[in-house]
């Protein structure tokens, strides 16, 4: 990367911001809400970016590339992330680039020899799921409705992400590896967002990735 790159992730309750300098030096920071408190996506993102840029001796003027997770994940978080990324990109005269939150999470486990399953809390009794054995098959899994919802995961897989932490006990009992809750593998690295987003098509605007069909039904289809 020959320009200063910014990576942003707001797809889970955490807020992650990272900067990669043209010389390869990088720094990332996270805002982790305390148990029971709410995400701080809207206030933390730019505040952390400003601090990181200052700590690295650079500034907003030097930003040449902006990468952001497009989801799946937090409904408002993704909107805040995309809006922030688009604003930064506009000021830099470039287009923001997107990355799947699930694939970015899997990228963090790329060096491991075992298969990995990324699990992000989708709320409403569901998890967003992707495996590194079939990364293009990403879906919302209704865990509240199925007793053995993990049955199609690759045998012996390591399970990562906030959805894995929430279901650690069940997954370990089923024979999967779940690192300790504090392990960085569970976290979406904003520097990995920068790397993952290199595959984003140049002419495509960033937009939220939904893995669930909308539950609001257009009036015309409602038959009222």
């Amino acid at each position, binding site marked *: 990367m020959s320009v200063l790159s910014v990576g942003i992730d707001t797809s889970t*309750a955490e807020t992650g911001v990272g900067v990669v300098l043209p010389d390869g030096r990088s720094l990332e920071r996270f805002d982790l809400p305390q148990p029971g408190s*709410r*995400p*701080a*996506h*809207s*206030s933390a993102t730019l505040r952390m970016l400003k601090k990181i840029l200052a700590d690295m001796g650079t500034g907003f003027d030097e930003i040449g590339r902006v990468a952001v997770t497009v989801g799946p994940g*937090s*409904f*408002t*978080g993704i*909107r*805040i992330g995309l809006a922030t990324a688009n604003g930064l990109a506009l000021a830099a005269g470039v287009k923001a680039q997107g990355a799947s939150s699930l694939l970015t999470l899997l990228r963090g486990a790329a060096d491991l020899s075992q298969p990995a399953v990324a699990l992000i*809390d989708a*709320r*409403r009794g569901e998890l967003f799921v992707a495996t590194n054995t079939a990364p293009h098959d990403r879906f919302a899994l209704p865990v509240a409705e199925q007793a053995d919802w993990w049955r199609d995961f690759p045998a012996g897989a390591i399970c990562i992400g906030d959805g894995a932490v929430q279901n650690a006990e069940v997954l370990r009992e089923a024979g999967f590896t779940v690192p300790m809750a504090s392990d960085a593998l569970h976290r979406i690295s904003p520097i990995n967002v920068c790397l993952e987003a290199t595959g984003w098509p140049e002419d495509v605007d960033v937009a939220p990735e939904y893995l669930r069909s*909308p*539950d*609001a*039904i257009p*009036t015309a289809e*409602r038959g*009222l």
Partner: protein
Amino acid sequence: MPLYARAVEFPIDIQTRSAQETEALGSELAQCFAGGNRVVLEGDLGSGKTVLVRGICRGLGVTAEVTSPTFTLAQRYENGRLPVSHLDLYRLEAGMAGEDPGVLEGEFSAERVTLIEWPERAPIGSLQPDYRVSISHLGGDNRRVVVECLS
């Protein structure tokens, strides 16, 4: 006689017979609203909340197209007599659980009229509505619209 031509007494309890009539009612109601007012809109999917909002926006002089903000959460209209924020919180969970309420802060500023669909999904304690509008189906295109003043 239009509502605003006389002293309005709340609650208003009116039956409309078409989307056009619901929109016209919204336009009349808008004459009662002032900056900082928060209006919650209750009614099932398809009851006509967005139609009423369109009328309110027209009544406030908004000329832009008024569309449902179900996917965007909030839609702002700035070119009318008062700035309007139209929120549709349907996509959120009760109390905006797990989400950052800071994203909606700017929609409740003192100069704006804020229209809120699915208000029960707003963060607990953030809403002190001035008006409550309840819309219910009466079969076909007929709707019952009840407007209460809460402040």
